């Protein structure tokens, strides 16, 4: 297929809208069907709004530390949450408008409605104004995403028991908040609300918070949260909760009872694969309801593609975007696949986390189960030994590099200021197959935080300059 091809895309999140623009670049005629705001969860109720709020407390934390650095600020740092939320809404509105502008420039049609696939070439749309329309297309891309949990034992009521979407619009700082689930979202909200002055408790079922991250990341994050007086409870979950007028009483399985004003339910997300007509066209789904796709993002039904959260591959906005570009490139006759082994990701806690590739445990499992003589070497470097970190006062954090004995980089984990940006040098090195020696041989500018990655890479061969290798205690 090529120029003149008409592509219908269900959903305008970071998967769908990026797919739409890429398809238009390649000469396709594109119709996007989205009943809610352009940009999806990521832009409207996820990544962007939470960062907009976190940016304010990060600034506040800096100001709180400013006195000894010689910056005089009179009066205490206080937060105006309604104003923070208002500014967050402006940031989001601006970005949503930006997508609309791009759509206009590329002549992408946006139908405000819900699409249901009727057959391989037809999408039936229930338009928001209650009219209905039929869209004929040569190919269909499903980018319907995922939705907030709705577990019977934790009934979301929008006032006391909340989803992250609802927590982003809170107008009053709650005295006490319970976060159910110590994953990425749970830890980000714990950082945000503890900085606002809320007494936060995280309850995580696994034996550590951020259970999918490297063990050292989890333990440092636990410590950093404790420094903020966050109560981190692991290895248990909520047995039941009772709602009263102003408070919620939480009974944990470990016997502890807590009383809070708000509860954030941050466990699991459901795939939006129901009610969109998959069964009518025979699109196969997996056990969890995720849409099964091949390397070209095509479903079991030729001509119908799926991308993003709904494919259950990775619940990350940037993976959805990459899948979206790949899907439409394949539709337009180009052979494109993506690599799932090099996916950088950021966690926007205080401090920030950046990650790419394997954790140390995964790397050791790989070494044990893999080729003969494969072993793993670890390099570490702490922010505190970086001139730049000392100068700016961002001395908390470290970089950890996990490499194979061959020098191949298997995974990199950074916790500290700008970690989510810094991780991309590591991701690029992995993407192009650079060895630790090649990275160490590249000159890194001084003074920068990026030197931390260079020194950690050097430390895999015990040749970091600003590190004394000796065992303490």
């Amino acid at each position: 297929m090529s120029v003149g091809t008409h592509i219908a895309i269900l959903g305008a999140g970071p998967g769908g809208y990026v797919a739409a623009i890429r398809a238009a670049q390649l000469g396709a005629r594109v119709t996007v069907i989205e009943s809610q705001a352009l940009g999806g969860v990521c832009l409207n109720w996820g990544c962007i709004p939470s960062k907009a709020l976190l940016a304010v407390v990060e600034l506040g934390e800096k100001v709180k530390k400013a006195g000894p650095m010689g910056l005089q600020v009179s009066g205490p740092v206080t937060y105006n949450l309604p104003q923070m939320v208002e500014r967050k809404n402006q940031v989001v509105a601006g970005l949503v408008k930006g997508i609309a502008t791009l759509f206009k420039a590329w002549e992408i049609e946006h139908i405000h409605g819900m699409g249901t696939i009727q057959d391989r070439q037809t999408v039936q749309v229930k338009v928001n104004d209650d009219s209905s329309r039929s869209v004929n297309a040569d190919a269909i891309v499903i980018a319907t995403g995922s939705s907030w949990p709705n577990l019977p034992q934790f009934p979301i009521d929008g006032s006391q028991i909340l989803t992250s979407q609802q927590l982003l619009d809170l107008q009053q700082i709650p005295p006490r908040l319970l976060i159910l689930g110590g994953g990425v979202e749970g830890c980000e909200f714990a950082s945000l609300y503890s900085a606002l002055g809320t007494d936060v408790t995280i309850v995580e079922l696994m034996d550590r918070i951020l259970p999918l991250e490297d063990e050292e990341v989890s333990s440092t994050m636990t410590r950093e949260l404790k420094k903020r007086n966050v109560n981190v409870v692991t290895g248990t979950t909520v047995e039941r909760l009772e709602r009263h007028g102003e408070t919620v009483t939480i009974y944990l399985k470990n016997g502890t009872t807590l009383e809070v004003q708000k509860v954030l339910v941050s466990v699991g997300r459901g795939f939006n694969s129901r009610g969109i007509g998959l069964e009518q066209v025979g699109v196969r789904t997996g056990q969890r309801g995720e849409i099964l796709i091949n390397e070209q993002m095509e479903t079991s039904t030729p001509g119908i593609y799926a991308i993003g959260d709904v494919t259950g591959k990775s619940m990350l906005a940037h993976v959805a975007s990459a899948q979206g570009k790949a899907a439409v490139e394949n539709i337009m006759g180009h052979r494109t696949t993506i690599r799932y082994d090099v996916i950088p990701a950021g966690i926007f806690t205080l401090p920030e986390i950046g990650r790419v590739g394997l954790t140390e445990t995964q790397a050791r499992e790989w070494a044990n189960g893999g080729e003969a003589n494969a072993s793993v070497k670890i390099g570490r470097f702490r922010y505190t030994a970086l001139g730049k970190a000392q100068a700016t006062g961002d001395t908390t954090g470290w970089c950890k590099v996990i490499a194979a004995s061959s020098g191949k980089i298997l995974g990199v984990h950074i916790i500290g200021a700008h970690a989510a940006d810094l991780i991309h040098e590591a991701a690029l090195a992995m993407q192009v197959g650079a060895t630790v020696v090649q990275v160490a041989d590249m000159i890194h500018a001084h003074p920068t935080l990026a030197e931390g990655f260079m020194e950690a890479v050097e430390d895999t061969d015990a040749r970091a300059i600003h590190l004394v290798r000796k065992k303490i205690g």
Partner: protein
Amino acid sequence: MIPADLRYHQEHEWTRVNGTQATVGISHFAQDALGDIVFIDLPKVGASVKAGQQIGEVESTKTTSTIYTPISGTIVKVNAELKDHPEVVNSDPYGQGWMVVIDLANAGEVEKLMTAAQYETFLSSQKKG
């Protein structure tokens, strides 16, 4: 810097016995090796602990190190001052820098710990190693 009236553990914790209870902290050698201490994570009162078990962590500007309990028993007191002033462990490791008080489960365990003289020998052997 090795008080004679204390007992020492190979992980560099000290123990001061007072009746059925014992106070635990980290030695001068440990604090010196760690450098400027910025955070100390201690167990909760009421926790029951076993000799050799990890009970907390000390974070310094150089590293993060585990705190082990040299003795078994129940934590009856933790030094809350260290939350805001962890640097006290650097300045006064055997005094105000104490970490926890443990209700002894087995007083005999204390006898197995090193005396000041033994700890001194242990340290010099470590330095050579």
